[in-house]
């Protein structure tokens, strides 16, 4: 039995009929066509699927699409505004915070959340804040620097 859900994704409202068991990440990728949100494990550990749901970073592989009903979702595609990169995106570019890029959308969303909670985090706080995100390429150091870059930029 399909169910109707209404959500706002990156500022645009939409309505879809979905199977109750459809994961939010598959809804975003396969139904809505926003493939920037990735799947690295489907078990809530790697964070590649991180999106913002009602302002909080969540792992979209562990939420059903129906649970997001009436929710407001921001994905990586919705982060830049009017063609201007979000400071965290900019930081990743400036500081070489990515290699293969597969973890990157989730990392960036996690970075956004870290800075929402604490605009001036220490290196250690950033590393702790990335607890839910895995990167196999970078060794994280440049990711930390990318978030530091964004923090500085957002403060000034």
């Amino acid at each position, binding site marked *: 039995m399909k169910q109707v859900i209404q959500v706002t994704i990156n500022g645009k409202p939409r309505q879809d009929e979905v199977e109750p068991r459809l994961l939010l990440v598959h809804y975003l990728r396969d139904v809505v066509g*926003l493939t920037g949100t*990735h799947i690295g494990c489907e078990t809530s550990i790697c964070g590649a699927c991180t999106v913002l749901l009602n302002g909080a970073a969540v792992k979209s592989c562990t939420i059903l699409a129906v649970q997001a009903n009436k929710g407001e979702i921001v994905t990586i595609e919705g982060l830049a505004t009017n063609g201007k990169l979000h400071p965290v995106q900019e930081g990743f570019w400036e500081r*070489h915070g990515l290699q*293969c*890029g597969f973890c990157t959308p989730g990392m960036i969303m996690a970075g956004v959340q870290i800075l929402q909670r604490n605009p001036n985090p220490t290196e250690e706080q950033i590393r702790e804040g990335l607890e839910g995100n895995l990167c196999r390429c970078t060794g994280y150091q*440049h990711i930390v620097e990318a978030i530091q870059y964004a923090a500085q930029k957002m403060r000034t």
Partner: protein
Amino acid sequence: MATKLIGERIKRKEDPRLITGTASYVDDIKLPNVHHVAFLRSIYGHAKINKIDVSEARKLPGVVAVLTHDDIKGVLKPMPCVGGVPDMHTPEHYPLSGGKVRFVGEAIAAVVANDRYVARDALDLINVDYEPLPVVVDMEKALEKGAPLLYEEYGENRGFTWKISGGDIDKAFQEADRVVKLRLVNQRVAPIPLETRAVLAQYQDRGVEGELTVWTSTQIPHGIRTSIAGMLNLPEHRVRVIAPEVGGGFGCKVDFYGEEVLIPYLAMKLKVPVKWVEGRRENIQATDHGRDQINYIEAAVKNDGTVVGLRVKVLADMGAYYQLLSPVIPTLTGLMMCGPYKISNVSMEVLGVFTNKMATDAYRGAGRPEATYLLERTMDAIAAELNLDPVEVRMKNFIQPNEFPYKTATGLVYDSGNYQAALQKALDHVGYTKLREEQKKLREQGQYVGIGISSYVEICAFGPSAATATGGWESATVRIEPTGKVTVLTGSSPHGQGQETTFAQIVADGLGLTMEDITVQHGDTAVVQYGIGTFGSRATAVGGTAVYLALQKVKEKATKFAAHMLKVDSKGLVFRDGKIFPENNPEKSVTLTEVALAAYLAKDLPPDTEPGLVATAFYEPKNFTFPFGTHIAVVDIDPETGQIKFRRYVAVDDCGNIINMLTVHGQVHGGIAQGLGQALYEEVVYDENGQLLTGSFMDYCIPKAHHLPKFELDYTVTPTNVNPLGVKGVGEAGTIGSTPAVVNAVIDALAHLGVRNIDMPLKPEKIWKTIKEHAPKKGPIIVA
């Protein structure tokens, strides 16, 4: 060559699409009416399959096909292994196994459905009648008489024996003052690219000649195309393989997997696009594993620390069968067994062993991390035995800077090096002498501090074709378009390394253009001339050189046009700021755009010159390159918990000339993280029944941000003369250098307790237990 961009920190050209979520990995490519595949995989490590009943699965609405071995028998050929060694047993294996399964995760049935959830549902409806057989997962046990056999027909679990030697090993041992022995386990690890494998195939029946397009997450798209054509009996020019955005490879995607044949086969058979995206559990079960060696080491040494001979026996776990390159991987351990040292007498015997586990194959470093690990652990063991400083032992045995090119006892010719300089620089960074004094003081206070050194040399830039399985050259095209913009086509297949940027730097500098003027394309066999791919730290040294050579050719032609247009001699013309002009007369210039337009309009061609501005080069390297360096780890160990904390991590690497400082840092960081992961956290574990105990990220721990220290990097620069760019390659350096540095540091921290070895991964529990076993009766640590 102008050096405006080369050597700088240049932001990557590939990043904008990756940070905005607009890049396309295989699963991001959406084709209408695509069907999805799910695999049923063996739940036993070793079993006979009496029967597979797929009738219920076939009835599930949405399912269009269910295949087992019987459906592909006689249709698909066995999977190839091109990295063979002489006199080996070569078992056959197919995309779907029948009769017998030999490891958990081996594919035995494939479901195709119009929905990915339905495909997975159908797996539950397949009934398999297994008859479990005795299992062997331990290599030493597998070689014992009476061990369960994976292949009855061979009468043994030994797949092959491979040997290498140089000098006079027996004499060396006779002349030695003493022999230092070690048994080291280099445990099995999983490469874990964050993007798992994925394959999408579409067959377009054009009435007369069909066309197959395959998108696959690979490091070697051209090789995959040739292989698919061969396996499916298709004309190669009707097969197009695309490696779109690839989310990491680390060697496990330098392979040709059963799924890469089966998915295209299904697309052709069912006449719909077919997609398979590997789950993470499947990825840990059925994508290549790496390492998994046991090394029995005997070093013949003089009392002053000179190593006169090295004898090593290696057991190399092949798993249940060979993948594309499996047997050849441990032979690289043998080739590199001298490392940076002047060891004139060596011998190694490698036994490839079958066990009920997934196959091992290339994983970042592929055979060389094992060589460095065994050597660097041995150097420390020698130092401990002779009561010498580990630095002294290394310095004593290093090849001298004036001895290059240096021929090793294993027959390699090292291009260039200055191992002393890299070690010294790393020592200076950590403040070695002071640190040792501090360590002594802290030890007296009951604190455990360890300093671990690892000096390595690696073999890179694979490689001369004569010495590589599938050809070791690389190709490139530099095409100046009519508007003066430039397209570069590379046979390399980067998947995170950033060659769209570094190759653009090479070309921009050569043509006097900006980064924005250049686009680098790769990974699509319909777009790019045949190439080899990205692995073995070869992309810049071999692929970059091909770009450089194509660039010289196209410049030569552009120069002809410019000279013709300016009515000057072509000698002494330079490319700068988008213009071409005589070095001594910058006023008299044409723009590259004007030259390009003239070349394509072809109204007034220079004598004996064809229209157009395109050049292609195939570069065949005359040797490998040999990057090197020293990594130093400084750790604190909490005796109460066995927890390890990093004080410092210093890496001094020498990869020859550097094209982009930013991406070189990135490669080293990522490499260290993986090597450190092996040292401390990672291990693929099978229990005695062959069950995989580490099949998810819950149990297989790759390092997180807070597990890792801040890396302090520096470089020495010793260019190679193997290629005109002087670059050596840096993709694997971090992985090779880091593992022994970390382990040596931990063991050094416990050395005063008499600890000489702990096998990886050095989990707190293991360290705690070791401390407990070795701690003196009285003293600061009290362990219950």
